[in-house]
């Protein structure tokens, strides 16, 4: 799991700024909630503005601290998005596998990121709500389709081929966006690709781990120490050090005066 609990020997730790983008209600906040608290809420309220969360992710050689911007998908907040992706090292562009329009929206976000975000940004395309499809009804890990496994994952159960999925022929299958279509697009654009379910947890941690692995070592700024917190913003485990890291970075970037102590 992503908790940094296993850190007996201190590993180098670095922070990664990550932004989630995508149409309203595709499950961005739910993915973050699953990743950070391993929880799911059936009726999650739309995000207003944006939420900032942190979570550590332990890799064999280092610890990554994600600084996550979970943005609101609603149109009226779209103009604020550049503020969140401007300095991001990674982006999770999310669509809903049961809603074709959300993939279109995702493609717009990818294009905007490629135009406007930092050149080295790692982008993952994520098709969420896999549990609503036939190949996601099962909690088995095989249901998700990572970039290179997508072919085999397709034929997981009941032999639901893409044709069936597209036509919604199999009863109970709400899939409207085929894995092949999305993989094809992701390959063309050089994106990581996953199908996930925030509800069952399928593939959620994998997305973040894959991103952590995909960030070039060179672009990782090493923070001080490993820190003991789990990244929640509660008082108890939020060290002053953590915030100082943020402060430094941001002050440099925005040339704003620091705290007026």
């Amino acid at each position, binding site marked *: 799991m992503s908790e940094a609990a296993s850190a007996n020997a201190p590993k180098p730790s670095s922070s990664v700024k990550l932004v989630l983008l995508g149409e309203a209600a595709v499950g961005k906040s739910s993915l973050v909630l699953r990743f950070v608290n391993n929880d799911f809420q059936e009726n999650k309220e739309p995000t*207003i*503005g944006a939420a900032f*969360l942190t979570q550590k992710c332990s890799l064999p050689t280092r610890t990554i601290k994600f600084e996550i911007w979970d943005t609101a998908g609603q149109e009226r907040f779209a103009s604020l998005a550049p503020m969140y992706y401007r300095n991001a090292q990674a982006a999770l562009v999310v669509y809903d596998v049961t809603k074709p329009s959300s993939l279109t929206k995702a493609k717009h976000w990818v294009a905007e990121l490629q135009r406007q975000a930092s050149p080295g940004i790692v982008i993952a395309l994520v098709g969420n709500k896999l549990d609503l499809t036939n190949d996601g009804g099962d909690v088995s890990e095989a249901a998700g389709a990572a970039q290179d496994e997508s072919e085999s994952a397709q034929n997981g159960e009941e032999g639901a081929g893409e044709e069936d999925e597209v036509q919604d022929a199999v009863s109970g299958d709400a899939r409207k966006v085929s894995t092949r279509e999305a993989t094809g697009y992701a390959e063309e654009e050089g994106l990581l690709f996953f199908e996930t379910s925030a509800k069952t947890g399928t593939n959620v941690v994998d997305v973040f781990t894959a991103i952590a692995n995909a960030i070039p070592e060179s672009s990782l700024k090493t923070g001080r120490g490993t820190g003991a917190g789990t990244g929640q913003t509660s008082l108890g485990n939020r060290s002053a050090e953590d915030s100082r890291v943020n402060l430094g970075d941001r002050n440099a970037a925005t040339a704003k005066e620091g705290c007026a102590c």
Partner: protein
Amino acid sequence: MNTQQDPETDGQQPVETSKQPYLSSPSIPDHDGRSDSSEGERPPLPPRPNTLSLLSDETGSRTALQAEATTAISRTDIETQSPEAADSAYSTLAVRGLGQGPKARASLSQLASPRGSEAGDSASIRSSIPNGDPGEVEALFMDFASTAPGSQRQGATGLLDFPEFAADDIDDDGILSEFEAVGELNEEGDNEGLLLQRWKAKRKHYVILSAAGKPIWTRHGDGGLISGYVGVIQTIISFYEDANDHLRGFSAGDTRFVVLTRGSLHLVAISRMMESDNQLRLQLEALYMQILSTLTLPSLTHLFSVRPSTDLSRPLQGSETLLSSLADSFTRGSPSTLLSALECLKIRKQHRHAINNALLKTKASSLLYGLLVAGGRLVSVVRPKKHSLHPGDLQLLFNMVFEADGVKAGGGESWIPVCLPGFNSSGYLYMYVSFLDIRDDIENSAEITKDESVAIVLISPDKEAFFEMQAMRDALVEQMERNGSLKEIKTAIDIGRPATTDIVPGTVLHHFLYKSRANVQFTMSSYAPEFSSVTRRRRLMSMYNNLHASIHAKNTHVKVHHCVSRSATSFGWVTPVFELYCIADPNTNRNALAQSASKIAQWVQREEERLFIIGGAVF
């Protein structure tokens, strides 16, 4: 259906435009002869400062209101009260203006009173304050008591044991189902009848539509289901508009309709609950403020000037939940909205001072307002000298932060663009929100109730200032941890609101609301244990709504209002300094009531600097 036109009380329309006399529902017996009814005017609320004085610079005029002694205040009241005023006051005391049904009236008219023949007045019993020497507070009330009729009730039962108003004849499940969705039309559309039936069962509706008749938002039922009804409302409203007139409200059976028009929007409240037109109108104002808060006034105006038939539900997408949680807090009963005032967390003056200092010390350079809020109760405020905060704006913020789930469930820190219409309706500010976990046992943080959660809210005009605000939050928390403020806040939250008996041992009072008019803040006793359930709380709020409406009825210069009913006694007392509303058992002795009330008032004055934020932190 009876319609009633109400001239704008704010003077835009002269009173004479009221062409039709007020017609009550025919099923209501002999309540129509009240002298004021034919005026067809809704009683305006008394003028209220629209800013928090603690956050306002105009302290000069208000210091004059600082009370030295209760009696001194009473004297002013009494001396300014002419006999005529007292007379007209007397005649307008009944629950007029409340959208109550025949049943509600029936129960009220059962009140025993020596003036039983004056049915309208039997509902509430007022004693005019004598013009003589006011004397001691107790003496004043004694006098008052001697003019009031006996209050012995037949078959009286415990406090609010049964619904006083027909509108409250509902159990917990009933109230909870009020907030349930009516559901959606299925594909065949054959469940429409069932959905409409559920929709009609709701006691409270809000409908917002454009002048062109497009439904913008409704609390219950989607546009498709109820478009016919929205059309009817639109037709009725435009009928009056065509005649260059404003429809302000009308009744249909036991249901009251109140219309508020703002620019290209019509906001309509439909209530079968115990609420006056003015109270409903305040609720509609708050909903309108929420719309402005989402869109800003210029963009709202622009949308409609470009295309009058604009479908506003799209730009408002996502703020429906804010409108709904606001609406539901009104339906559940909100002392804050009723009194147009804010509640503060009670802490010692020196502790509040320490928090103020921490806020000032850690203040980020682009900070506009900084607030520390514990479960909707203000703990401390920091603000620039030249800007005051508006209670209406704070109500929107508190609703967003504590009532609606969107922010809190986000789990982390939030950065939210908001327009605060009271501050400036034409632009956005950016709000940083972080919840503090001040409890020792972090494991069950999920169980933290609304009243226990503490939020730091930092507002900046700079949309890039998130990390600056975050740094301020960290510094502030560190400061407050070091000087023990967090522990004090936690203690204050744990102690909670005092019971009436904590304040006045053995008092007959079961609950009270006290509003400090100068501070635009209120304090109240705890709901628990008697008013913990939704139903009891709703009944309590109905009593207060009724009391508040009576005491603020137009042309009344009522200072003291005593209302006896089968299940409770309510008592209101208004001076230039405060408004005090109390609830006691039926059959409560009036002397005891009056004595307790004045003890509460004295207690508040003694504790003023703990109960209210006076001054606040200014930079």
